[in-house]
């Protein structure tokens, strides 16, 4: 029986991630994208915050994986027309528009050169031209060209322009007769990942966009600085094409604005800081200003990024730009500087607007087709905003990413995995593609192919890649060498596969970026070409040459040659390796019984997976038990928790309270865990572990919390509010207590929203003062609550110098008025920071070897694209264990972690890395030094005919190689890292290549 299908609408990063999680868990996926390519808005970005990772570099591998996955059918140029039926049995009609070019296309571009018609390219936000037949951008997937028939002269055969057809040398490629197809799909559940749109800044007349050429949007800026953009990364003014000397970034250009969008668009602060940093890096002497209302750098590592921007000399001016005019040759931005209390006219050469994120175009039509509801802002409505954020208002339909509101990449990705987890509960039949790893390639003389990547101009901007490719071509055993714009592009992968077949290559070297990020992608290409994937080598000439020696292009080029020479030396001695398989224990352990743990447990249980949940306290429910009413809608926390507990009672989840993790042995798929509880010590095997240990709240020592009884924390206030009404008091709130300071720079993310919701409730019957640094009400409905609080008379004061409290009065230097104020206060509420759960975290580091970030939270596999995976395979992160989160984010990440665990546990066996130790029995003298140094007890001394010999358990060996170094008779070898290979690399570095 074939696998049940899930429909994913939208091929941006959220849709791609959801599709991969579904497909890796054995579901079949139809991934529908309206545009002719996958990747969405992330593909248009140059860099991502806060790591300044190249956006394409980190997204491309996922795009390629989705496109190549045998469980995923990618349908581009497609739209959902009708949906009938119900959860478990939806009937979907999809209209697939014709490309007029079929899959025979080799993306050679001959047609593009021949086409006479040109228009501005949408991908480059109109800054570059495209033809009627085109590929939106060089690394687009699929890499088949498309004809825009509205532009094509051959429309309706009025003019018989067939220039593209004449130029095309491929048989049966361009086909003007191609017609639209209506596809009927049967799916069990649906994920909506349709993304959003951006307000056309022309509608904001005061900013002069469209009137002044040098007023541009952030996306236009992104394309301008992008290596693959219209100016190849040269930052120039559109008018005059000179480098600007002054650039002004205007934030909240239409967001948090009564005239346009009342809500916060959530990504613009960080995105603008990133762009300001890029501008400063491009133009060191330029004056870069950023006009803002509040800096909302609330994510992990964001505050540090913001601080770095300030250190670089980027000027932050607190105030919203009111209008932009032109005087002589320059632009003038008018702004009310709220810190200095004056109206300023700032001269500048270029303005970059951050316009609001809006719901996707035609979202109303899609809502009708799906029969689900929209919220007040026109985004898709969640079934319940706090604990069911990913459920649409109809059963079986799930939401993720910007479909429900503005969101950054990491949050969208976590939600995408979460939506996949929910959608999987309807998937009854699962199938995993069986991949045969070819053994071929080791026989005969090495025939090496070298592919040198430009990485746009990330490498080629510094390293002379043509020279390097030419040099590589001359090295012994190299029979093919070429340079390519993007080695990871689908078209290049195809080229590598074809070249392997045509030239009978048996070793491949890609000189590009890091094997840690891109190795798997190329190894898959070798598999597809029919040769063993371990005959692959990578030379990291981007991270180790062009990026770090950018001022010394000649030496960077020479070093690139040396790195390739060393790779050739290694490749010469490479052997085909076959991965062994390891069985998977089909059960999951969840550590922590708060809302994150409960959500993950119920998600996995819904998929029929055996789940054990341990909680160190006597009762389940975690922090939610201590909360009263939840932002933004005021629903009672106890109600939501009661519902979860009811669901838990109906489930088969094995719950252990007063229980803690004692020890963990083993590895992904096979963890042997001992759990301590009141009943003693229990040992059980699990295939996956989800960590949902939550976080702690900071215990304040400042503001007289220890000495004065009228100083309480925000959590203590929740209990007080639950106990009964608070009336007739003067209450002051202080934000950022224990956060955003030198000791602890990170923002705790939850507290502005919680506090504004608290004061909105208190303000009717009390006098309320609110002392804050930046107002970070970015969550759904939070900005609206902030507004309600203002309307109810809450007085807001902004501080940079820490206020003081003597038991009666709060003394604060108010930034707005510039005055030193003394605010009489009956009750002082401290909004306290979220800190890592230190004791438990230390235990996790000890038994699981997980990595920590500087603040002591668990480190994610990748801050942008791996938010729910830990640094250890098979161990996943749910909720605040990886950093402060709001409730809906906690729940989404918990579901996301469940999806990752489900994918692992849906498999009967997983492939174990073949990079393991191996014994040359003839050399072994069974001295047992190898087994003594092995940290995993993977080596035993066994009896054989005529003596004894060391024996390696391949499933337990992790390939560290300690035993190899220890062996006195060179009997031990590490596959993939043989002594001979490393020695050859050393020799090659010194110039010797045999």
């Amino acid at each position, binding site marked *: 029986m074939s696998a049940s299908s899930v429909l994913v609408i939208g091929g941006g990063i959220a849709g791609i991630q959801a599709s991969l999680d579904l497909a890796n868990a054995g579901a079949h996926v139809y991934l529908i994208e309206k545009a002719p390519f996958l990747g969405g808005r992330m593909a248009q970005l140059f860099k991502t915050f806060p790591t300044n990772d190249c956006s394409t570099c980190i997204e491309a591998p996922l795009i390629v994986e989705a496109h190549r996955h045998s469980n995923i059918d990618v349908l581009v140029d497609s739209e959902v027309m009708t949906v009938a039926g119900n959860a478990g049995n939806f009937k979907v009609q999809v209209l697939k528009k014709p490309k007029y070019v079929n899959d025979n296309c080799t993306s050679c571009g001959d047609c593009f050169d021949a086409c006479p018609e040109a228009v501005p390219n949408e991908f480059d936000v109109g800054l570059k031209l495209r033809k009627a037949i085109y590929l939106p951008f060089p690394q687009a997937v699929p890499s088949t060209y498309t004809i825009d028939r509205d532009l094509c002269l051959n429309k309706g055969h009025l003019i018989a322009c067939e220039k593209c057809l004449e130029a095309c040398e491929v048989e049966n490629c361009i086909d003007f007769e191609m017609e639209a197809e209506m596809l009927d799909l049967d799916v069990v559940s649906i994920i909506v990942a349709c993304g959003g749109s951006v307000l056309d800044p022309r509608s904001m007349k005061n900013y002069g966009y469209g009137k002044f050429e040098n007023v541009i949007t952030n996306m236009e800026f992104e394309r301008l600085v992008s290596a693959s953009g219209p100016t190849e990364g040269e930052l120039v003014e559109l008018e005059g094409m000179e480098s600007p000397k002054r650039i002004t970034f205007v934030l909240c250009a239409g967001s948090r604005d009564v005239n346009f969008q009342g809500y916060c668009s959530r990504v613009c602060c960080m995105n603008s800081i990133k762009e300001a940093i890029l501008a400063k890096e491009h133009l060191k002497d330029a004056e870069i200003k950023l006009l803002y209302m509040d800096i909302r750098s609330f994510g992990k590592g964001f505050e540090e990024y913001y601080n770095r921007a300030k250190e670089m000399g980027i000027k932050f001016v607190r105030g919203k730009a009111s209008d932009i005019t032109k005087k002589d040759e320059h632009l003038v931005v008018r702004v009310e500087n709220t810190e200095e209390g004056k109206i300023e006219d700032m001269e500048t050469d270029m303005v970059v607007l951050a316009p609001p994120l809006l719901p996707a175009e035609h979202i109303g039509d899609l809502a009708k087709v799906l029969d689900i509801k929209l919220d007040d802002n026109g985004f898709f409505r969640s079934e319940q905003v706090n604990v069911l954020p990913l459920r649409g208002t109809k059963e079986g339909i799930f939401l993720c990413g910007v479909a429900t509101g503005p969101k950054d990449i990491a949050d969208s990705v976590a939600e995408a995995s979460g939506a996949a987890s929910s959608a999987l509960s309807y998937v009854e039949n699962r199938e995993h593609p069986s991949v045969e790893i070819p053994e071929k390639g080791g026989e005969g003389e090495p025939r090496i192919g070298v592919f040198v990547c430009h990485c746009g101009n990330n490498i080629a901007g510094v390293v002379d890649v043509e020279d390097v490719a030419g040099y590589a071509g001359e090295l012994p055993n190299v029979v093919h060498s070429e340079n390519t714009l993007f080695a990871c592009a689908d078209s290049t992968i195809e080229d590598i596969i074809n070249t392997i077949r045509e030239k009978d290559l048996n070793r491949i070297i890609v000189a590009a970026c*890091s*094997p840690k990020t891109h190795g798997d992608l190329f190894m898959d290409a070798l598999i597809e070409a029919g040769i063993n994937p371990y005959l692959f080598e990578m030379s990291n000439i981007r*991270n180790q040459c062009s990026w*770090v020696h950018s001022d010394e292009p000649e030496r960077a080029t020479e070093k690139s040659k040396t790195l390739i020479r060393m790779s050739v030396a290694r490749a010469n001695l490479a052997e085909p390796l076959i991965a062994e398989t390891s069985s998977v224990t089909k059960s999951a352990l969840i550590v922590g019984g708060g809302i994150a743990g409960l959500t993950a447990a119920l998600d996995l249980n819904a998929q029929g997976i055996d789940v054990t949940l341990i909680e160190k306290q006597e009762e389940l429910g975690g922090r939610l038990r201590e909360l009263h009413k939840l932002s933004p809608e005021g629903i009672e926390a106890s109600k939501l928790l009661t519902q979860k507990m009811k669901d838990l009672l109906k489930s088969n989840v094995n719950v252990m309270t007063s229980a803690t993790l004692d020890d963990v042995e083993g590895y992904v798929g096979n963890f042997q865990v001992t759990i301590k509880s009141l009943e003693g010590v229990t040992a059980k095997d699990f295939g996956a572990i989800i960590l949902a240990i939550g976080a702690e709240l900071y215990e304040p020592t400042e503001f007289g919390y220890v000495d004065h009884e009228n100083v309480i924390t925000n959590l203590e206030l929740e209990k007080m509010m639950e106990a009964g009404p608070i009336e007739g008091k003067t209450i002051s709130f202080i934000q950022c207590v224990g956060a955003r300071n030198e000791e602890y720079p990170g923002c705790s993310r939850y507290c502005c929203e919680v506090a504004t919701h608290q004061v909105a409730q208190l303000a009717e019957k009390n006098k309320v003062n609110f002392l804050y640094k930046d107002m970070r009400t970015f969550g759904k409905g939070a900005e609206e609550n902030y507004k309600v609080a203002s309307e109810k008379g809450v007085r807001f004061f902004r501080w940079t110098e820490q206020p003081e409290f003597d038991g009666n009065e709060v003394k604060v230097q108010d930034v707005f008025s510039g005055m030193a104020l003394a605010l009489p206060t009956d009750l002082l509420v401290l909004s306290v920071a979220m800190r890592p759960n230190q004791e438990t975290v230390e235990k996790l580091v000890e038994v699981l070897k997980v990595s920590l970030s500087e603040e002591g939270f668990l480190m994610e596999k990748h801050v942008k694209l791996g938010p729910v995976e830990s640094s250890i395979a098979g161990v996943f992160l749910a909720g605040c264990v990886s950093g402060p989160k709001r409730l809906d984010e906690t729940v989404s990440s918990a579901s996301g972690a469940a999806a990752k665990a489900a994918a692992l546990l849906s498999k009967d066996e997983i492939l174990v890395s073949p990079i393991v130790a191996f014994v040359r029995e003839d050399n072994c003298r069974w001295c047992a030094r190898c087994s003594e140094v092995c940290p995993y007890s993977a080596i035993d001394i066994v009896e054989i005919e005529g003596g004894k010999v060391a024996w390696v358990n391949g499933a337990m060996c992790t390939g560290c190689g300690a035993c190899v170094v220890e062996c006195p008779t060179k009997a031990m070898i590490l596959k993939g890292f043989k002594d001979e290979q490393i020695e050859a690399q050393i020799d090659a570095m010194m110039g010797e290549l045999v």
Partner: protein
Amino acid sequence: MSWDPQILVFACNWCSYGGADAAGVSRFQYPPDVQIVRVMCSGRVDPGFVLRAFNKGADGVLVTGCHLGDCHYQDGNYKAEKRVEMLYTLLGQLGIQSERLGLEWISAAEGQRFANVITDFVGKIRRLGPANGGEGP
């Protein structure tokens, strides 16, 4: 005559190689006199590799791995530490200045540290001059 040292850096897959990647991502600059050989663990670095590099004319060798306590393989970096200490004695006996061999711990998050460590080590080797005692700086 200008002289550029030839320095071999062993980097473990999990920490210091990641640190080198992170240095790249953040564009932290360092001198191009180093070549990285990736190994799974610093505990994989055979003393023979270090001797071979010096024998072939390398001016310096730097072994890098996870911080002590952070080893992906529990204690591979402790093994590396012991072997490097043993090598210090051996290098002296062979007439190679022991400062030419270095050992540093760098995590995958420490891009800045990676660049600093390399810059300092290259500076040290430049001050020492060529290992073969030939033309100096």
